[in-house]
Structure formats: structure tokens, C-alpha cells
């Protein structure tokens, strides 16, 4: 076991954290009940009027850290491939969590005036889970994609 500071400084945090598995941690949601992936799907159905969704759609890109340093503040960017014209644009982007106390995170409502379907925000994730982005297009079609985020566990018993 060598523990010199100098040879550890350049540790790649992401590499180091790939010692993985599954976690439970609560940040501001001291709640026992958690949404399930089924709840997430159901919620998306409610928000989109039950339209059949194209899952894993290449039109929807989610940028999320693979590992969130703290679940309380996780930066996310969603980009939807759309010309954003009057005839063809994104109307809504729903962000949904499948492991938080409730599935809904935020819904963005866009218009052709946006020019580009790209939005960023910061979200709370109580534990390692998937974040789903569901884009509702002006023709009523729904495109979804999802991305897993590992939420870190603090060292001290906290």
C-alpha cells in the first residue's frame, strides 16, 4: 500500500469511481416511497396523452454526468433534433426520474421562437437512477431517451 500524495494527484476521478454497483442515498427527500420505472412510464403517458413513444430515439440527446458529485445538484442538458419551424417543432420536453420520490422533474414548453430545442437545468436525484427525456413534437409524436446517472455516496456516515 503506497499512499504518497504525489502519485495520486492525477487520479482520474471517473476511472476511480467506476468501482460500481447500486446505491441508496437521500438528499432532501427523506421519503421511503420511490417512483419505479413503471411509474415513470405511466407519468409520461399522462403527459403525452398516451401517444405511442419512440423509445431510445436518436432525436433526443441527454447530456448528464455519468457520475454526479452530489445528487442535490446535477447539471443536465437536453437537445432535441428539430428545425423548430412553425410546421415542425418541439412543443414540450418532459424530464422524468425513475427513482425519485415522484417521477416528474420539470416540463419545458417550447415554441418556434426558441429557434433551437436545447435546454439546460440542474436537478435533484436521490439515488442512482435513470433520467428520461420525453419530447412531444408539433405533429403529436413522442420521442424519448434515457440516461443513467450514478449518484455518489459520501464517506463519513453523514
Amino acid at each position: 500500500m503506497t499512499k504518497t500524495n504525489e502519485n495520486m494527484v492525477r487520479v482520474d476521478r471517473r476511472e476511480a469511481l467506476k468501482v460500481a454497483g447500486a446505491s441508496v442515498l437521500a438528499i432532501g427527500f427523506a421519503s421511503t416511497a420511490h417512483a419505479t420505472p413503471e411509474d415513470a412510464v405511466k407519468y409520461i403517458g399522462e403527459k403525452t396523452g398516451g401517444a405511442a413513444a419512440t423509445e431510445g430515439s436518436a432525436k433526443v440527446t441527454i447530456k448528464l454526468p455519468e457520475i454526479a458529485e452530489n445528487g442535490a445538484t446535477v447539471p443536465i442538458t437536453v437537445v432535441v433534433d428539430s428545425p423548430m419551424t412553425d410546421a415542425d417543432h418541439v412543443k414540450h420536453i418532459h424530464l422524468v426520474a425513475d427513482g425519485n420520490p415522484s417521477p416528474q422533474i420539470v416540463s419545458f414548453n417550447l415554441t418556434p421562437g426558441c429557434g433551437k430545442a436545447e435546454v439546460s437545468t440542474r436537478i435533484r436525484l436521490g439515488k442512482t437512477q435513470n433520467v428520461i427525456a420525453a419530447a412531444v413534437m408539433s405533429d403529436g409524436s413522442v420521442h424519448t431517451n434515457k440516461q443513467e446517472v450514478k449518484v455518489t455516496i459520501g464517506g463519513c456516515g453523514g
Partner: protein
Amino acid sequence: MHKVKSVTAMAVLLGAGLALGACTTESTTKDVMKHPYKEVWSGYSTATPETRAMQDDDFANPYMPYVDAAAELWDTPAGEAKKSCADCHGAPDDAKGGSMGIPMKGVGAKYPAYDPESHGPINVELRIQKCQTDHQKAKPFKYESDELLGMTGLVVMQSRGMKRETKAAEQSDPLYPAWLQGKAFYYQRRGQLDLACKHCHEDNAAILVRAELLSQGQSNGFPTYRLKWQKPGSLHRRFRGCNNNIRSEPYAYGSDEYLALETYLAWRGRGLPIEGPSVRK
């Protein structure tokens, strides 16, 4: 106490030139001047790209609305003296430091400074409070209030990129007694978990504790917006949090113990650029 060579003890001896032992009173000047780290690094260097990006863009840095609000307070006359900060110091970034000739640039890099009145260290937070009391004849902002955090951020920000400097480890320096006290604190085990600062931040810096990459415990990023707190916070809040985590009774904000530790940490981090208000996990 019997001496046993353990793996851990060996590691400490092998570690980055750690000439500083647990004893503090018998150090020679030469010893105390020796830097405890071979390489000093900021928590920024091990933060994720997302967290760094949040800090790099003042617009995305969630500390900044607090600084904006403080900038308004800076220009607002207050107290019986009906004076504003600007009346004496000019604009926060005024290189000449207004009518009093005391610029804010450099404050963040030089503090804690020696306060002849208390015969000990004074940090930026307490200095702001003292200014309010002495010059504005006003009720000072409470430690850790949004106002004081905003104002501390505004002041420290003027030194961003400047290197931390201190002479506190020199016996001739008036801060030397506080430096010694801070050093003793750093190496003393405490709390039910029985850990000294050095066990995490010196012996095991850059190593994972669960998912937490241990830092060198440097202070150059403070005050900071901590993702975990979802709020700005002071260095003393971080001290209190650390103490609580190891199940040790924390000291009060602005206490002599924490001021001494702050003085000592400034020395451990000398040369590091001031980043406050930073963003940390």
C-alpha cells in the same frame, strides 16, 4: 506509549515529505517552514468537469446572486454613521481603494490578518463585521447570514487568481501563536471517529473514501457554493460540518479555535490561487 510500526505509520513516513509530526511545541523554525505537501492542489483540480464548468462561468455559479445583492449593499449607506462601504473604499474593484486608500484586491489572498485589538487573527467575515460596527456604527451582519456570505464573496472575489500568502509560520510574525494553535488542532484526533484533519487531508488526500475523493482540505476556494448544501457557505461552516461528521463537538463560527485553524490552513495552501466564491461538491 509503546511504538509499533504499522502499515499506516509507514505510509505516513513514506508520504509527501511529512516532516511534521504530531508534536507542535518543539518544532524548530526550519521544521515549521517546511511545506507539508510536495505538491499543493486545489479541490478544483479533482472536481468533475460539470462542477468546474459551474465555477468557471460566473453566470452559472449559483453563488453570484448573493454577490450581486452584496454589491447593492456595498453602495448603500448604513448605520448611525450613514456611511456605505463605497464611501471609504470606492468600488469593490477600485485599485486605489477609495478615499481611505484601502483596496479590496488582495484581501482574500492575505487574510486571516493580525488584528491588534484581539491580538489574534481576523478573517474576512469578522473584518466586515468590525467595519460595520466601528465605521458604520451599524449592527453587523450575522455570521453565515446571506448578507455576510454575499459580502464575503464580493470582497474575496477581488483577489481571484492571486496567490495565497502568509508569514504566520515565522516566529517573528504576530500570527505565529495562532499558527501553532491551528497546527495543534490539525494534528489532534477528535470525535468518536477519533480522526485528526491530517488523517484524511494529509495521509489520504486524493484517495477515495466511499465515493468521496479526499481533498487536501485547502481553503483557497472559500467562500464556496457547495452542491450538497445547495447554498453558499463559509470555511467555518465547512469546519463545523467536518467536525460533526467525525462526531466531534464543533466550535462556534468565528471562534478562536477555527480562526487559528484558518490561519494554519492558509499556510498549508500558500501559493494556491484564490478561487472564492468557488463551487464544490
